[in-house]
């Protein structure tokens, strides 16, 4: 059951994402193409079908009504709608997909589905009435619940739509209706089919593909399941068998030959309904094969795997990499000359490297999903704020580790909102007066550079007024030195301090006081760096530098006393020997050294971590100049042991009780000889050292 739910969530989420992209694209063109309409119809149909199977009636209802709406649109053509209708339709669609998404989220969080969906459904229905005009409104509303209204009056025949019944010579056919809401009608129908087969009753049935296609559910729910036994005797036998089955509500037997003759009589009575029915029944049946035909070739080469499996794969690959170097660098064979062994180990190393690359690439997903969401945010805010903004997306196929994609989604969203809300000028006139094009532009881009992904959000709005920022920071007591001494870069980094918000008013979208500092924290939690550049009047640009993966880092092994530490290579700028004379003491006795015309504090790891070591003289050890985010300083260590690619392992949960994360340690790794090396978190390490002195 869990597995089914997972599949359901995956499928529904994918469909909703598709739908969102489609709607955004369509809205840009201000029109739906016939393809779009068919696609939406298909998506809604699938959601409806699978929701019904899972017995999520809320989702099913909404999808059902949207499906009806698009059915109408498809039948009547898009030209029947005028422009205002179309924009209404876009809003309605966004609103209802939001509703669907909210419900799916509830499922994911194990919350009960909301029962109050009447407003959405009323909206959809009233829109349908509007576009179909007053006259057709009755038909429109009856289309949503056709079988319930009509089935009882026309028991003897025509609504069953004999035209879809299998061709052939049989005297009677049986219509089976299942109980309302019993779920999985197709499987129940299939059970009937098997039962009849077991009894050797020759027959044909419609829909025929109940076992394989879950899309038949809707048809069976609405129109019933049809069984056409070959002989009159078989009919009686079949009816007896069917009645033994659970959840069967009604079993009706109809004369096959008579049906067409009876039809005209009832048709006159409810001509409109019949027309609806006739066209609705193939519609309900046909999209399924069409859909599976179109999506099958694309889907076959893709499988979905749960993230936890990938995680354990990564863990095992990590172990193999470590074990490989344990074997090849085993001290027992160090001084032996083993030609063929060396050859094999080289081969093994190459293979493990390949294996590692492939395992890593499995976790890589394009950022396009996250970027596409921004489309939606820009669209919504555009409407609310009445600003004309265009979102340009570049490099959306850039791939990043799945866990990183998840954690940067919120920061990017926040930055985009900030740009929309504060960055872009409030009126078009202001833009034109500043000599800019009337339509503002936000560029969201992603690029690869070696081991990092750079994501930037750039707008061509007002830019940031540094003097205002400075004033505000001063008012909030965030300045640590005289305001005249702040450089442009430093002023902009003030924005990311906790408790800073440039906008006086709190708006719906941004500026709740939990602004950029949270963004910064999120980005740093995945090992990223955030920076802001801005030019007054020209616009601003926020850049995120994110490592491609968290699982494996290039590290420099260093030793302090008996302990071994790993410093991520990405944080190291330089390592050098220092002479005693170059060390300067500041007022409180802290050591400072000058590199490249700037002064940097020295952090002695052996002092910080209370490690006994013989190397305490600054000239005996080595200094490593490290940098992380906006912190730059020098670490004093005993010696460098060498560079190594290491697999990051989290520290045991027991230790996190001691706030181990805040003591400058990000994790640990197992070295080739089985020893453990502790990976240092350069940014936190500095904060720890500041607190200690």
């Amino acid at each position, binding site marked *: 059951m869990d597995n089914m739910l997972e599949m359901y969530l995956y499928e529904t989420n994918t469909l909703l994402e598709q739908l969102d992209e489609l709607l955004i694209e369509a809205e840009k063109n201000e029109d739906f193409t016939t393809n779009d309409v068919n696609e939406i119809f298909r998506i809604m149909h699938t959601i409806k079908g699978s929701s019904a199977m899972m017995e999520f009636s809320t989702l099913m209802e909404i999808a059902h009504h949207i499906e009806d709406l698009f059915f109408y649109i498809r039948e009547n053509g898009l030209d029947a709608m005028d422009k205002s209708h179309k924009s209404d339709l876009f809003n309605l669609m966004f609103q209802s997909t939001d509703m669907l998404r909210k419900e799916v989220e509830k499922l994911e969080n194990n919350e009960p589905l909301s029962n109050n969906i009447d407003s959405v459904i009323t909206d959809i229905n009233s829109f349908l009435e509007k576009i179909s005009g007053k006259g057709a409104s009755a038909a429109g509303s009856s289309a949503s619940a056709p079988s319930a209204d009509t089935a009882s009056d026309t028991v003897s025949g025509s609504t069953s739509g004999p035209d879809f019944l299998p061709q052939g010579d049989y005297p009677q056919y049986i219509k089976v209706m299942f109980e309302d809401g019993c779920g999985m009608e197709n499987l129940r129908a299939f059970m009937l089919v098997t039962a009849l087969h077991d009894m050797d009753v020759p027959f044909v049935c419609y829909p025929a593909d109940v076992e394989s296609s879950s899309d038949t559910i809707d048809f069976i729910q609405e129109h019933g399941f049809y069984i056409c036994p070959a002989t009159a005797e078989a009919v009686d036998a079949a009816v007896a068998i069917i009645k033994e089955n659970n959840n069967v509500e009604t079993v009706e037997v109809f004369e096959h030959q008579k049906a067409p003759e009876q039809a005209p009589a009832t048709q006159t009575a409810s001509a409109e309904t019949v027309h609806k029915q006739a066209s609705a029944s193939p519609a309900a049946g046909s999209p399924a094969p069409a859909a599976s035909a179109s999506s099958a070739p694309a889907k076959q080469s893709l499988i979905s795997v749960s993230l936890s499996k990938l995680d354990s794969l990564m863990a095992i690959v990590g172990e193999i990499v470590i074990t490989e170097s344990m074997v090849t660098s085993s001290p027992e064979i160090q001084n032996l000359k083993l030609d063929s062994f060396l050859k094999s180990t080289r081969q093994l190393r190459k293979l493990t490297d390949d294996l590692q690359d492939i395992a890593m690439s499995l976790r890589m997903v394009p950022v396009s999903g996250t970027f596409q969401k921004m489309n939606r945010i820009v669209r919504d805010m555009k409407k609310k704020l009445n600003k004309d903004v265009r979102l340009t997306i570049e490099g959306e196929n850039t791939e990043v580790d799945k866990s990183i994609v998840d954690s940067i989604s919120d920061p990017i969203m926040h930055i985009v909102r900030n740009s929309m809300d504060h960055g872009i000028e409030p009126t078009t006139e202001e833009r034109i007066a500043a000599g800019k094009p009337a339509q503002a532009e936000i560029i969201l881009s992603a690029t690869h550079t070696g081991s990092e992904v750079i994501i930037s959000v750039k707008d061509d709005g007002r830019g940031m007024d540094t003097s205002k920022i400075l004033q505000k920071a001063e008012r909030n007591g965030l300045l640590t030195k005289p305001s005249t001494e702040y450089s442009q870069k430093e002023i902009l980094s003030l924005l990311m301090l906790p408790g800073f918000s440039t906008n006086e008013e709190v708006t719906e979208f941004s500026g709740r006081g939990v602004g950029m500092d949270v963004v910064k924290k999120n980005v740093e939690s995945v090992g990223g760096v955030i920076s802001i550049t801005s030019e007054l009047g020209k616009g601003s640009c926020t850049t995120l530098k994110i490592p491609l993966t968290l699982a494996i880092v290039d590290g420099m092994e260093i030793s302090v006393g008996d302990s071994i530490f790993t410093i991520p290579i990405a944080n190291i700028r330089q390592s050098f020997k220092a002479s005693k004379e170059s060390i300067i003491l500041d007022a409180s006795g802290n050591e400072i050294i000058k590199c490249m015309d700037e002064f940097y504090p020295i952090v002695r790891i052996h002092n910080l*971590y*209370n*490690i006994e070591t013989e190397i305490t003289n600054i000239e005996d050890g080595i200094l490593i100049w490290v940098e992380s985010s906006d912190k730059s300083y020098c670490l004093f260590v005993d010696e460098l042991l060498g560079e190594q690619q290491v697999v990051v392992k989290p520290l045991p949960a*027991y230790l996190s*009780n*001691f706030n181990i994360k805040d*003591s400058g*340690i990000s994790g640990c790794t197992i070295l080739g000889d089985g020893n*453990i090396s*502790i990976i240092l978190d350069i940014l936190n390490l500095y904060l720890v050292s500041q607190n200690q002195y």
Partner: protein
Amino acid sequence: MSTANTEIDSTVDFPVSTERFLTFMSDGLTIGISTNYVTEIITNHAITMIPLVPGYVKGIINLRGQIIPIIDIRLRMGKASIDYTDVTCIIVLNINDTNLGIIVDSVQQVVDIDKAQISAVPTESHQELINGMISLSEHSVLLFLDHEQLAKTIF
């Protein structure tokens, strides 16, 4: 160890409330912990120290690719530490999915204890990590380690 257990099980019929306890020595006390929580006993393992944690947390070890934190039970109970010798052992425990290694002076044996016989610790001699005691023969007393308390951390 498990094969030995099944042998005993098949020959002797124990009361339902009987549980197996691994007993170990720490600072002259005999302490027992239910074998349900014991994963294995290891000796002579290199411990990697972790900075900026309370003294009783000796560090972490690499046990076949798993990282396991190690605490010294003497220091945890507020006793003086001693140098580790050949008989010093690490008992690896799994308490509610928390892996934890405890350093003890020496491991003694596995005994079957009728849980109904365990009495509470008198308040005047109350110890933080002990939640019960039982007197065995030969004037010896067995104390029981409070595994829940052990898995929690206090500063």
